[in-house]
């Protein structure tokens, strides 16, 4: 009887605490009308010895991280996310502070800024900032009210990847992913943001992240048509690569990272940007408000945005580096293929944004659930 009373009292206590308490982050998120510059840590000081980050696959590859660890003594611990929301959720788990850095794409970066979980960056401590492509220095997805919250890192498009041994002529339209001829041989991302791709490519939406309910319904119907053709919806890059390697899939929507990895594994694959247009992502490094290792964090940001390391990152991922000085490092041919200095190409890609209206992300996520069934 006493135990029951104790449990009841505890439950009541939990209720009271949780119901009354509001997230303290809310108070910090209001953009202060004070100075728009902030003082960062001394980047020449000794690092804290450790760095935790939640990132996309390929952003802490051994080929360049080993050099960083040797140079700075900061041991890198990286966790991967399969989607922007997963990265956002992980970064904020337990009140934030678990991770020092995240490589947020343009959709998650604004959410991070608005929710007050990222710190303003001290541009004077970002040694490669001046060499970043002009359109990427202070873009609206990582700079708000003149305050710099992110450092642009790399960008890329969501491309169509296919197995050249099976599909001998290069496809030029996204409709190939909806062709019954390839039933059971297709893979697309398990991510509600795919709705934007269909809106752009088949509904001609000029702003694919701001679509109304009618368009969302049409897109959902199209995706349901595709459902029976999809072998598996991939979550991590390795899923995509395993499917291609085992020949379970010959066609898919993916990232240049996959094309790179599969080619290295000896597969005859290629990627194309079909005529209907592409969505993409532009990633920024962001620092947690409660980062435990800010010195190591700044050191890493400066390390991976240096021309030499940007070239190494491209070797691993195939994405386009933000630092213009990496162009001569990769050579003219590759520089052109990657469009490093091509600002007009950059502007053609519809970068990830978090849909808020007319339809919001929850509506997209629920629609996506009905597609998968």
């Amino acid at each position, binding site marked *: 009887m006493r*135990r029951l009373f*104790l*449990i009841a009292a*505890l*439950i009541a206590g*939990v*209720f009271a605490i*949780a*119901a009354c*308490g*509001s*997230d303290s*982050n*809310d108070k910090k*998120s209001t953009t202060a009308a004070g100075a728009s510059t902030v003082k960062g840590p001394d980047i020449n000081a000794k690092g804290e010895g450790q760095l935790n980050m939640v990132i996309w696959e390929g952003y802490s590859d051994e080929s360049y991280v080993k050099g960083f660890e040797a140079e700075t003594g900061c041991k890198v611990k990286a966790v991967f996310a*399969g*989607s922007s*929301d*997963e990265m*956002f*959720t992980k970064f*904020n788990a337990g009140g934030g502070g678990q991770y020092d850095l995240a490589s947020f794409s343009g959709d998650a970066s604004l*959410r991070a800024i*608005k*929710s007050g979980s990222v710190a303003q960056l001290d541009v004077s401590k970002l040694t490669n900032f001046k060499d970043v492509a002009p359109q990427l220095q202070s873009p609206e997805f990582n700079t708000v009210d003149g305050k710099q919250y992110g450092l642009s890192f790399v960008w890329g498009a969501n491309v169509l990847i296919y197995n050249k041994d099976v599909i001998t002529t290069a496809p030029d339209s996204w409709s190939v992913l909806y062709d019954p001829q390839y039933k*059971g041989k297709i893979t697309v991302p*398990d*991510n*509600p943001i795919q709705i934007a791709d269909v809106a752009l490519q088949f509904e001609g939406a000029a702003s694919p992240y701001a679509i109304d309910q009618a368009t969302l319904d049409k897109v959902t119907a199209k995706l349901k048509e595709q*459902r029976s053709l*999809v*072998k*598996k*919806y991939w*979550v991590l890059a390795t899923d995509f690569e*395993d499917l291609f390697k*085992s*020949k*379970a899939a010959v066609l898919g929507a993916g990232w240049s990272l996959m094309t790179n990895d599969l080619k290295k594994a000896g597969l005859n694959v290629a990627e194309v940007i079909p005529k209907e247009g592409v969505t993409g992502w532009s990633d920024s490094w962001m620092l947690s408000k409660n980062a435990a290792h800010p010195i190591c964090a700044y050191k890493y940001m400066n390390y991976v945005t240096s021309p030499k390391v940007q070239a190494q990152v491209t070797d691993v991922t195939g994405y386009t580096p933000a630092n213009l000085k990496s162009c001569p490092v990769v050579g003219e041919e590759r520089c052109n293929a990657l469009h490093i200095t091509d600002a007009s190409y950059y502007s053609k890609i519809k970068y990830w944004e*978090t849909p*808020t209206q007319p339809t*919001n*992300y*929850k509506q997209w*996520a*629920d629609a*996506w*659930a*009905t*597609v*998968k*069934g």
Partner: protein
Amino acid sequence: MGWLLVFYVVALVLLLMTSFWRQDVFTAKLVHEWTTDNYKQLFTGQDGLWLRIFGRTVLLATIVTLIDVALAFPLAWFMARIAAPRWRALLFLAVVVPLWSSILLRIFAWRTILGQQGLLNTFLVDTGILGKPSSALLFNERSIAITWANVWLPFMVLPIFTALEKIPDSYLEASRDLGAGALRTFRSVIFPLALPGVIAGSIFVFSLTMGDFVAPQLVGGGSQVLGGAIKDRFGVAADVPFGAALATLTLVTLMGFLALSRRSGALENL
């Protein structure tokens, strides 16, 4: 024991409370405003999608439990009553040792086995049963069921083994003396005495399948199960309160199953 209950109960209460709140779509922060919208969505939303997912998961869990009973019983019988004591210990170890390895590894192994270039397909093609590798073995509900049945099998074998081991030889002799054949003995003597073990094993397997999201993600296709749907809501689909509502539904189902099992007296014999 008291502290365990406290932490466990507190976590469950928080889960229940979260299922009555909202989440801000943009900042992903929980808004502490009471609403029954999540449960409305659960029972009526998306044309009954969530109820379909629930039904599918319960069906799969039931099938996997039945498969495991069918596989575990003969094995447990052999271990408990036929095998020599030396072999009994080795078999026991063989059943338990896989549990020492990472479950992720074992599920991944099934991905390799069932794949187009995997062990099973190679075997079927080499023996001429199939002309070419089948893509129907992986990334569907079938492959999830096969994987689950294998991975949770030790949890079914052990309770049944315990129950069968306890049956005195004299019971079986008495049954034979009274003129009962093997089938009658099984039906009237062995199975009723083994039933508590079967139910205990079923509780384990059923609960583990209802909540699992790892196997569906690694070897499943597009169709969702409850565990996967909940996991998505805490990740890519970013809707924690709705995920909490789904989780509460899972808990209530399992509690119902436990209540039914309790009446059979199985839990006293664990």
